[in-house]
C-alpha cells in the first residue's frame, strides 16, 4: 500500500513514490493543449470515450472526442430548504380515536346498512354527472377484453452477460484472479504498484476497461498536496478542528438544493453543430490549461456559457462574483451548480412552502437541507428516506438509467450515516402495448433488479403505471430507506481547517459527462441516440462494498462530514461540503484517481462516475480510514483539505484553476419566479365530465367491467415486475408488494418497524394540480395506515414538464401549494425530495405527476394488517363515504380512454380520521385484513383482497351498484373483521366519525355481489394476471 506521511497537517505523499510519481511526470509531459469546450459537439462517439491506450497516458494532441460539451448537474441529493421544525407538537395520529364516549351503538352484525350518502352535485366542486348519457361508441358491453395485447414484453432488457460456466473445467478457464482479495485482472494485477484492488472493472462492463491505464494514485495522499502549503491553506496544523468557524456568506437559508433530478437549464444548440465541417477528433482550438492567472490576463476571451446552459445574466453574475472572467473549470462548476437540477432555480420559490408550512413534529431530527431528512422512530433509532427521479437516463438507456437511479438514492441515504435497508420504485411508462414500452419497461425493471438485488436491499413496493403521456418520458422514481442510531447521523459539511478531504470508491471516468445538462434539459428528439454515452454506468458490487465500508467507518467515528457524489460529481461535493463547513477547501484535482487519464480538469469536475463518496476526516484518523477502505478493497485518496480561507481553491499540475467562494456556487444560484398561467385547455378538460359516458346497463355489464378493470394495465397484477426483485434479503421484510405498503422490522426484540408507501396519480393532477398532489399524499398516507402504522413523514418526487412553459409552471405551483397545505393538515412534514422538470416531448408535457412517499411507524410489526382476506366468515365492512366521483377514474380511463371533469374531492379530515381508526383497530387486533380504496374503487379492492387471501367474498352493495363498485372517493377502506370485534370496530368508527357499512362476509371461491353477479376466483385471477407474463 501507499506510504503515508505522518500527520503533519496535510502535506503528504512522497514525490518519489514509484509509479505514482512516474504517472505524474507523464501527465506533466502531456501538454494539455485544448479547451474541452472547443471539442466539436457532433463528434460525440457512440460509446463513451475510452482511454485509447490503456497503460499509458496519451500524449497526443488529440484527445478522444468527448461527450457533448454541455454540462450541467444531474442527480445529487439535495435538501429542500428550511430547517427542522422543532418544538412541541401534537402527536401525529395516535389520538383521536379511542372514543372516550360511552358505548357506541353497536351495529347489528349483518344487515344494517346506513344509507349511502347522496352524491348529488351539491357534494363538491364536481360538475354534475349525467348518468346514463349515451356514449359515443364502444361501451363496456363489448366485454372484458383488456385494451392491450397480452403479449409479453420483448425479451429481457439486458440478459445476464458473461460466459457460461464451463461445466468441466470450472474455474480453471478464463482470467484467473489472484488468490488474494484482488480479484480483478483489470486492476493491473499484483506487482503493478500500490494501487488498491477492486478496480471496479469487470468483464461485463460495457465501458472500456480503463483500469489498465497505469498506476493510479494510490490511496493516501498525493505528492502535489505539498502545494497546499504554498496555496493559502490555513496555518492551523492541528489535528483537532476548531469548532464554530463562521461560514462566510452563508445566509439564513440552508443550502436550498433539493435534488432536481434531471431538471436542467435549457441547452442551446452547440454552435459547432451547425458548422458541420469538423471531423470527429479534430482539435479545433488549442490553448493551455485555463488557469486563474490566464483568466486574469485574457478577460475578453469568449466563453461557451450558452452551450453550458447559462444565460447572459448568469454569466455576468459569475464574472461579478469573481471580479474577472471564470476559468473554464470555474465555468464548469458554476454552470452545473446553477443548473436547474442542482440549484432548483425555478422550483425554489415554491418548495419553500414545504418548510414554511411544515407542521411541527417532534419526530423530525433532520429536516430539508441535507441529503435526506431523518425522523425519530423511537428506541433510539432514526429512519431516513427519500425518493429521487432518474427519468431521462432511463429512457435513453433503460438498464443503466434505472440501475444508477437506485445507486444514487442509496448513496444519499448512506451519506446520512444510515444503513440502507430497503428500496421501492415508482415507474411510469407509455401504453403497455407500445413498442417502445416493450423496450423501456423490461430494461428498467432489469436495471432496478440487477442493481438493487446485488446491493442486498429488499424491494418492498412501488407502482407500475401506464399512460400514453409517458410514452417518450418514462418516469423512474426510486426510493430508499435507511436506519441508524440517533448519534450516528452524519452531515454534508467540511468543518475544521486542516481536516483532510478523501475521495473514495470508484475511480473517475468519463461517465455522464455532460449527462446532467444534455439529459436534464433537452427534450427528446431524434438526437437522443447520440446521447447514449451520457448515461452513467453502474457497478453495484462497488456500491455494496461502499455500504459496508461506510458502516465500518461510521462505527469507528472516523468522518466529520460526508457527501455522496452524484450529479455534478466533484464540483457539487466540494462546493457543498466547503460551503456548509469551515468555508474553504483546497483540492489537488490531479490527485483524483482516474479511470481514463485523458480526462481534462473540467471533465473530472463534471464526471458523474458512480459509486464515489467524499469524506472529511481529521488528520489523526486518516490512516485508520484508509485501512478500512483497504479492507473493503475500496480505493481511497486524500485529494485536499479544509481551509478557513473562504475560498474553494483547486490546482491542476501545480497551477490554480479554481478559486471561488464556494457558497456562491452551492447556495447562491439564481432564483427565478417563472411566469405561470393555467394551461389553455384546462377549462375545457374540466368541463368535459365523465357524466356523458355510458355506464354499465345491467348486471352482465357490471360483471364484465369488474373483469375489464382487473385486467387493465394499471390495475393488473405486476408479478412479472416484482418477481424480479428480491424482497427477502436482510430478513426483515414483513410486507411487500402487492400489499398497500411495504413494512420493515427494525428491531427483532420489540418489533419496532416502519411502513412506507409511494403513490401518485398523474390524471388527477392533470385535472386539478392542487387537488391531485393532495390526493397523492392522501393515498400514500392511507396506505401506510392500512397496515396499522402511524404516518409520520413525507418525501416527494415532483415530475413535471418544462418550467419555461407557463402552463407547466402553473401546475407546479399549484401542486406544491396543494402538497404543502395537505402535509400541514395531516400533520406530516416533508423531509426532503426531488424535482424533475423537462419531462416532455417537443411542447407536449407529461401529466404533472407528483409522487409522494409516506413513512409510518409500527410499534410492533407483528400487529400489521395485510390486504388479503384470509378467513372464512369474517365480516366485510366498508369504511368511509362513497360519492359519485369518476373524474380521472380508472373506469373512465380504461373503458373510454376519457380524461375530464374534476378528480375526487379531497377530504383530509376524513383521511386523518380513517387512519386513526385503522391504527387503533390494528393495535387492538380487530382486523384480519384491510385494503384501501383507490384506483378502480371497491371493485378492484375486493378483487385484490380475494386473490391475495385466496378466498371469495359475498357482498351486498349499498345504493347504485355502479357507483358503489367503481367510484374513487377518498378516505375509504374495506376491512375484514375478526369475529367478536365488530362492535368494537363500530365503536371506533363512531367515535372518529368514520362511516362504517357492513357489506358482506368472507368465504367461498367467488366474488359475488348479491342479486347481480358472481365471478369465480380462477376467472378473476386469470384476468388479473393476464397482461404481464408470469415467469419465463
Amino acid at each position, binding site marked *: 500500500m501507499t506510504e503515508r506521511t505522518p500527520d503533519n497537517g496535510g502535506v503528504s505523499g512522497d514525490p518519489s513514490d514509484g509509479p505514482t510519481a512516474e504517472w505524474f511526470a507523464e501527465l506533466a509531459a502531456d501538454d494539455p493543449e485544448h479547451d474541452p469546450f472547443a471539442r466539436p459537439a457532433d463528434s460525440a462517439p457512440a460509446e463513451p470515450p475510452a482511454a485509447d491506450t490503456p497503460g499509458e497516458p496519451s500524449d497526443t494532441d488529440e484527445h478522444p472526442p468527448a461527450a457533448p460539451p454541455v454540462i450541467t448537474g444531474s442527480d445529487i441529493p439535495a435538501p429542500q430548504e428550511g430547517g427542522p421544525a422543532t418544538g412541541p407538537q401534537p402527536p401525529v395520529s395516535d389520538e383521536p380515536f379511542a372514543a372516550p364516549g360511552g358505548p357506541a351503538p353497536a351495529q347489528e352484525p349483518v344487515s344494517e346498512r346506513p344509507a349511502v350518502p347522496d352524491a348529488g352535485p351539491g357534494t363538491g366542486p364536481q360538475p354534475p354527472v349525467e348518468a346514463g348519457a349515451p356514449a359515443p361508441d364502444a361501451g363496456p358491453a363489448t366485454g372484458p377484453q383488456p385494451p392491450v395485447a397480452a403479449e409479453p414484453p420483448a*425479451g*429481457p432488457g439486458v*440478459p*445476464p452477460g*458473461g*460466459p*457460461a*460456466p*464451463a*461445466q*468441466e473445467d*470450472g*474455474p480453471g478457464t*478464463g*482470467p*484467473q*484472479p*489472484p*488468490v*488474494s*482479495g484482488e*480479484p*480483478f485482472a483489470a486492476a493491473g494485477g499484483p506487482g503493478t504498484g500500490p494501487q488498491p484492488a*477492486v478496480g471496479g472493472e*469487470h*468483464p*461485463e462492463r460495457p465501458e472500456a476497461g480503463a483500469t489498465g491505464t497505469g498506476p493510479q494514485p494510490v490511496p493516501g495522499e498525493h505528492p502535489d498536496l505539498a502545494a497546499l502549503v504554498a496555496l493559502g491553506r490555513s496555518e492551523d496544523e492541528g489535528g483537532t478542528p476548531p469548532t464554530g468557524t463562521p461560514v462566510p456568506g452563508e445566509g439564513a437559508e440552508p443550502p436550498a438544493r433539493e435534488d432536481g433530478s434531471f431538471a436542467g437549464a435549457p441547452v442551446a444548440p452547440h454552435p459547432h453543430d451547425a458548422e458541420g465541417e469538423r471531423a470527429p477528433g479534430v482539435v479545433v482550438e488549442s490553448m493551455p490549461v485555463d488557469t486563474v492567472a490566464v483568466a486574469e490576463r485574457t478577460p475578453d476571451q469568449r466563453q461557451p456559457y450558452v452551450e453550458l446552459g447559462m444565460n447572459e445574466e448568469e454569466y455576468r453574475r459569475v464574472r461579478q462574483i469573481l471580479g474577472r472572467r471564470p476559468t473554464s473549470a470555474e465555468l464548469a462548476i458554476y454552470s452545473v451548480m446553477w443548473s436547474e437540477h442542482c440549484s432548483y432555480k425555478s422550483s425554489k420559490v415554491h418548495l419553500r412552502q414545504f418548510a414554511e408550512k411544515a407542521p411541527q413534529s417532534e419526530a423530525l431530527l433532520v429536516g430539508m437541507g441535507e441529503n435526506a431528512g431523518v425522523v425519530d422512530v423511537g428506541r433510539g433509532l432514526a429512519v431516513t428516506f427519500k425518493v429521487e427521479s432518474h427519468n431521462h437516463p432511463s429512457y435513453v438507456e433503460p438498464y443503466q438509467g434505472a440501475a444508477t437511479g437506485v445507486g444514487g438514492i442509496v448513496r444519499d441515504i448512506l451519506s446520512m450515516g444510515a444503513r440502507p435497508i430497503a428500496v421501492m420504485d415508482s415507474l411510469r411508462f407509455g401504453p403497455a402495448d407500445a413498442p417502445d414500452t416493450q423496450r423501456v419497461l423490461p430494461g428498467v425493471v*432489469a436495471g432496478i*433488479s*440487477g442493481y438493487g*438485488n*446485488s*446491493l*442486498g436491499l429488499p424491494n418492498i413496493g412501488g407502482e407500475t403505471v401506464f399512460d400514453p403521456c409517458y410514452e417518450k418520458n418514462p418516469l423512474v422514481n426510486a426510493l430508499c430507506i435507511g436506519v441508524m442510531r440517533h448519534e450516528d447521523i452524519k452531515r454534508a459539511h467540511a468543518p475544521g481547517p486542516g481536516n483532510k478531504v478523501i475521495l473514495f470508491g470508484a475511480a473517475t471516468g468519463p461517465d455522464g459527462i455532460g449527462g446532467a445538462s444534455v439529459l436534464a434539459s433537452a427534450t427528446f428528439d431524434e438526437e437522443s441516440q447520440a446521447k447514449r454515452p451520457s448515461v452513467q454506468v453502474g*457497478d*453495484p*458490487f*462497488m456500491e*455494496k*462494498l461502499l455500504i459496508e465500508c461506510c458502516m465500518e467507518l461510521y462505527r469507528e467515528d472516523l468522518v466529520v462530514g460526508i457527501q455522496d457524489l452524484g450529479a455534478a460529481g466533484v464540483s457539487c461535493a466540494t462546493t457543498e461540503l466547503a460551503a456548509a463547513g469551515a468555508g474553504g477547501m483546497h483540492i489537488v484535482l490531479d490527485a483524483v484517481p482516474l479511470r481514463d487519464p485523458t480526462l481534462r480538469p473540467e471533465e473530472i469536475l463534471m464526471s458523474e462516475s458512480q459509486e464515489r463518496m467524499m469524506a472529511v476526516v481529521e488528520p489523526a484518523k486518516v490512516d485508520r480510514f484508509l485501512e478500512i477502505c483497504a479492507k*473493503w*478493497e475500496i480505493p481511497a485518496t486524500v485529494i485536499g483539505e479544509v481551509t478557513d480561507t473562504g475560498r474553494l481553491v483547486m490546482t491542476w499540475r501545480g497551477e490554480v484553476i479554481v478559486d471561488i467562494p464556494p457558497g456562491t456556487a452551492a447556495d447562491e444560484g439564481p432564483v427565478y419566479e417563472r411566469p405561470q398561467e393555467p394551461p389553455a385547455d384546462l377549462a375545457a378538460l374540466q368541463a368535459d365530465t365523465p357524466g356523458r359516458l355510458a355506464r354499465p346497463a345491467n348486471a352482465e355489464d357490471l360483471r364484465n367491467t369488474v373483469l375489464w378493470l382487473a385486467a387493465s394495465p394499471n390495475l393488473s397484477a405486476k408479478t412479472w415486475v*416484482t*418477481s*424480479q*426483485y*428480491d*424482497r*427477502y*434479503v*436482510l*430478513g*426483515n*421484510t*414483513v410486507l411487500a408488494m402487492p400489499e398497500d405498503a411495504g413494512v420493515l*422490522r427494525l428491531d427483532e426484540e420489540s418489533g419496532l418497524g416502519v411502513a412506507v408507501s409511494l403513490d401518485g396519480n398523474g390524471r388527477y393532477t392533470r385535472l386539478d394540480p392542487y387537488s391531485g398532489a393532495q390526493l397523492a399524499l392522501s393515498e400514500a398516507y392511507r396506505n401506510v395506515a392500512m397496515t396499522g402504522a402511524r404516518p409520520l413523514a413525507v418525501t416527494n418526487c415532483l415530475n413535471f414538464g418544462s418550467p419555461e412553459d407557463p402552463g407547466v409552471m402553473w401546475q407546479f405551483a399549484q401542486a406544491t401549494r396543494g402538497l404543502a397545505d395537505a402535509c400541514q393538515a395531516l400533520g406530516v412534514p416533508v423531509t426532503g425530495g426531488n424535482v424533475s422538470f423537462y419531462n416532455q416531448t417537443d411542447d407536449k408535457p407529461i401529466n404533472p405527476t407528483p409522487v409522494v412517499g409516506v413513512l409510518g411507524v409500527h410499534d410492533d*410489526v*407483528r400487529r400489521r394488517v395485510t390486504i388479503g382476506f384470509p378467513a372464512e366468515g369474517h365480516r366485510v365492512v366498508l369504511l368511509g363515504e362513497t360519492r359519485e366521483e369518476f373524474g380521472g377514474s380508472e373506469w373512465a380511463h380504461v373503458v373510454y380512454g376519457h380524461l375530464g371533469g374534476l378528480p375526487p374531492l379531497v377530504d383530509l379530515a376524513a383521511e386523518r380520521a380513517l387512519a386513526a381508526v385503522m391504527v387503533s383497530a390494528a393495535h387492538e387486533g380487530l382486523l384480519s385484513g384491510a385494503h384501501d380504496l383507490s384506483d378502480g374503487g371497491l371493485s378492484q379492492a375486493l378483487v385484490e383482497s380475494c386473490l391475495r387471501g385466496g378466498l371469495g367474498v359475498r357482498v351486498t352493495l349499498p345504493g347504485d351498484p355502479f357507483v358503489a363498485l367503481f367510484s374513487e372517493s377518498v378516505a375509504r377502506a374495506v376491512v375484514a373483521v375478526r369475529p367478536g370485534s365488530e362492535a368494537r370496530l363500530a365503536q371506533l368508527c363512531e367515535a372518529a366519525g368514520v362511516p362504517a357499512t357492513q357489506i358482506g362476509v368472507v368465504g367461498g371461491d367467488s366474488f359475488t355481489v348479491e342479486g347481480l353477479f358472481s365471478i369465480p376466483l380462477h376467472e378473476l385471477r386469470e384476468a388479473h394476471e393476464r397482461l404481464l407474463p408470469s*415467469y*419465463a
Partner: protein
Amino acid sequence: MNAARVGVITFPGSLDDRDAARAVRLAGAEPVSLWHADHDLQGVDAVILPGGFSYGDYLRAGALSRFAPIMDELIPAARAGLPVLGICNGFQVLCEAHLLPGALLPNAGLHFVCRDQRLRIDNADTVWTGEYSEGQEIVVPVKNRDGRYTADPDTLEELESTGRVVARYLDLNPNGSLNDIAGICNEAGNVVGLMPHPEHAVESLTGPSTDGLGFFTSIVKAGLGQVGVG
C-alpha cells in the same frame, strides 16, 4: 451440551450472510462470522456459504470467491467431512470449487426470479436435512439469477441413482434446472448445495413459512462436529 458453532463466510458481495446467521441462532446454534480473506475457520463445527452476489458475480457466479483465502481451508476440511451448506451463491461457489459437481447457468427466463417455491426433500439423510422426512414438501423462497442447475448426463445419472438430489422444485421450475433439481449433495453427504433460501423461511413474520428452519436444526441435531453421512 454446548451449542454447535456454525460459521457463516462473508465474501465481498455476500448478501444473505446475516440472514444465515439469524437462522443458525434461531435453530439454537451459535453463528460464527468468518471472513473471506482469513485462513481461519475458527474451529467451527459446520460452515454456511451464504447467498448474494460475491464479487458481483463478475466473470461468473462464484468463480472469484472460489479463490478466496478461506477456501484454501474450507476445501480440504469439507473433503475431510466438515458439514458445509452452500445457499444460492454459496451453491455456485461450491460448484466452482468442485466440492459439488455441475454448474449453475443463468435462469431459463434470463430474469432474476423471486418467489415462494414449493420443494420436495428427496434426501433426508444428509447432515443438513436429517430433520425432514423423505418426500416432505416445504415452501421456501427462491431468488436467483443464475440458478439453472446443469450437469452432463453421466453426472446427472449418478446423482439420481445414488440419491444425491437433496431437493426438487414442485409445481413450477423457476429457472430451468435439469430434473427440477433444487439442491444436491456430495457423495459423503456432508456438503450440500441448495439454490432456494431456507434462511428466509425461519420466521412466520418475515417468511412464507418456517419450513426452512429444518436445515439449521438438522445440523444442531446431528451433533457437534460429527461428520454427517449421506
